[in-house]
């Protein structure tokens, strides 16, 4: 337990003390919540503006979780490899699995903090959600899938990209590009049909739509993603990415040559 606590504490402190991490995971999504809430809703009917703001808030929350998992986590792993910490850890009687669990819990805690701040700003900007307790629970579950999928992709990036800058650039690139092409920065209806298909399959985009649907309904989500096939696919892909990332991280980053 103390190994997990040690890795957890180190991970979250490093995230909180790195300006680039704070900018990309907290300041950047909040900036988009502000822009989305006051600029992009200018032509919309007044009665749906609070819900559009709600949708923007959820999308930016998902984006914050994606950046935390896909960019911050691999940067953290790459830094530990580059500065020799992984070699030091390999010489110690500790388990890679416990290190991994500590890191993921640190990531999850930091992601929750970023999510709370993004929601607080969204609510302050007038975001509203029309939902039930069940809808909120469903949305929380879908957001957990975002954390799983993002952490899985992040572990893959951290395993294969050896240097910090490369890991950061790759992670930010994947998060920004996939968010853009899967409708995180624009309404689902504005996407071309091929990208609409991608948005239904790509687990973080699908979980984003599912969370918006659970909190605000089909009109704001743009379609009904709450189908057995889409939910199953999203769960399966998110879990698969996390398991694949975990296995490769444990085997390759902790492998003795």
């Amino acid at each position, binding site marked *: 337990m*103390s*190994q997990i*606590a*040690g*890795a957890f*504490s*180190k991970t979250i*402190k*490093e995230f909180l*003390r*790195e300006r680039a991490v704070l900018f990309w995971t907290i300041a950047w999504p909040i900036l988009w919540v502000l822009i989305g809430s006051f600029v992009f809703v200018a032509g919309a009917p007044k009665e749906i503006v609070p819900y559009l703001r709600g949708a923007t808030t959820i999308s930016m929350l998902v984006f914050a979780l994606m950046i935390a998992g896909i960019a911050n986590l691999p940067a953290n792993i790459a830094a*530990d490899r*580059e*500065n*020799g*910490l992984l*070699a*030091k*850890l*390999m*010489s*110690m*009687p*500790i388990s890679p699995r416990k*290190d991994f669990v500590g890191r993921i819990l640190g990531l999850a805690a930091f992601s929750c903090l970023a999510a709370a701040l993004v929601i607080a700003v969204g609510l302050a900007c007038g975001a509203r959600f029309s939902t039930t307790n069940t809808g909120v629970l469903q949305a929380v579950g879908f957001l957990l899938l975002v954390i799983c999928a993002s952490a899985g992709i992040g572990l893959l990036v951290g395993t294969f990209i050896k240097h910090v800058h490369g890991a950061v650039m790759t992670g930010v690139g994947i998060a920004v590009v996939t968010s853009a092409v899967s409708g995180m920065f624009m309404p689902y209806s504005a996407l071309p049909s091929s990208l609409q298909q991608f948005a239904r399959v790509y687990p973080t985009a699908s979980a984003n739509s599912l969370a918006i649907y659970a909190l605000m309904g089909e009109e704001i989500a743009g379609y009904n993603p709450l189908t057995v096939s889409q939910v199953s696919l999203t769960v399966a892909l998110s879990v698969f990415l996390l398991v694949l990332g975990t296995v490769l991280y444990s085997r390759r980053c902790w492998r*003795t*040559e």
Partner: protein
Amino acid sequence: MNAIRVENLTKRYGANEVLKGVNLKVDEGEFYALMGPNGSGKTTLASIIASVRVPTSGSVDIYGRKSWEAKEWIGYVPQENFSSPKLTGRENLVYFARLLGYSGSQAESLVNEMLGRIGMSADADKRVGKYSGGMRKRLEVATALFPGVRILILDEPTTGLDPSARRKFLGLVEEVKDKQTTIFLITHLGSDAELASRVGLIDNGKIIAEGEPEALKRLHGLGDVITVETAVKSDKVADVLRNFSDEKRLLETEAGYRIYCKHGDKVLPELVRNLDQIGGKVTRIEVAKPSLEDVFFKLTEKTVTEVS
């Protein structure tokens, strides 16, 4: 019982054989320095002893156990600065203490004690990113001194430190370690290796000589070392110097030359005269006792730093 026992160790990366049948024994409580140039295989050897790499063949025993079964006895300090610059010195040590299984309160009190031992209590709450190179290295050595560690493996710990910080650092290591703790130091600096009780010289994946520092110098028949710097380096100057050197050995350094002869003081006046005759103006000349670098040069015709 040997603290470290290495037998017929080889390590290959594809066609490149980095270690070629290394045999080594280090006793409990001994301060052993392995000295050699970059690429000689010393870091690979240290990392295999620390279980970070696996050998191609051969074995490493730590107090009679296979090295990977003896991780709790090994305190390994890799060459790179592995402490987190975002955390304070205290937080870094608590992190390692927790990884070793200490509870939060046990870790705190143990770390307080260790910070005192390495003389860093006053700077413990500063972020490591603000530490000097020497302070950071001291902290990293502390991560390898937790209770239970019996062998301290230091890989080039003084790289980047000035000479006085180097001596201070190695003095501190001697001071803070328990009497039974064995030190295995990797270095390319003779001055660091001379602090050890026994030195192994490694070149091209093989240990080429081993012994106490003074014994190594005596054994290889190095009398005095004459360091000569002239206004201009030339073949003529080199030829004159070579004639005064035992076995005609001449080492060209960045600033001048070094030669080896039994009675340096006696030949000095004649040497200066001969250099004068060919117009080689001497700007500095010094007779000194040989260093371990000189032993390495005698054995390999290579300088440790030159290859580095």
